[in-house]
């Protein structure tokens, strides 16, 4: 049984009339949001946003060689699946190798009186380092 004075909520397209006490908070809310808008405009005009500027620090990349082509090379050579961590270690190993080659090649090129590193420098550097890797 319904208690007396209870009316079920209107459903569908039936017209409804809101009582007065529901309109008052809506008006107050609108007024406060309008004040907020005015305040934001004031901030923008006076250029106070400069003091609230947020600095975003991007994470620095550790690897300069890309993962995916190296993983694709391993996959095409062996015909097997490659784990995500495996290609990361492969890039790390290749970067270690390049570091060793380049440091040797710089010495060779400077000794022969050049500033540019040529192909023969790298070839000679790799032949001397090959046994360590």
């Amino acid at each position: 049984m319904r208690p007396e004075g209870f009316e079920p909520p209107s459903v569908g397209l039936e017209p409804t009339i809101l009582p007065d006490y529901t309109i008052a908070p809506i008006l107050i809310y609108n007024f406060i949001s309008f004040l907020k808008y005015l305040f934001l405009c004031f901030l923008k005009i006076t250029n106070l946003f400069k003091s609230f500027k947020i600095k975003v620090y991007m994470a620095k990349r550790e690897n300069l060689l890309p993962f995916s082509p190296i993983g694709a090379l391993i996959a095409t050579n062996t015909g097997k699946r490659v784990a995500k961590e495996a290609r990361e270690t492969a890039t790390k190993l290749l970067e270690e190798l390049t570091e060793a080659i380049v440091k040797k090649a710089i010495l060779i090129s400077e000794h022969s009186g050049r500033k540019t590193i040529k192909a023969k420098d790298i070839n000679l550097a790799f032949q001397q380092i090959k046994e360590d890797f």
Partner: protein
Amino acid sequence: MVGIPLSALENLMKEKGAERVADDARVELKKILENYLYDLSLKASKIASHSGRKTINSGDLLIAKK
């Protein structure tokens, strides 16, 4: 074109201390790295199949390097 991009290699060489890099040098470095990776991956795949797996893990590559 499958392989390591040449511009990435040039950036890597410049980070490691090279002042100027010739065009032939990076092609040579790419050839060396891919040959090195080929030998390493063949060893790693044998290790993976030995332990009964179908995927190559990071441990396989580290053991293959030693």
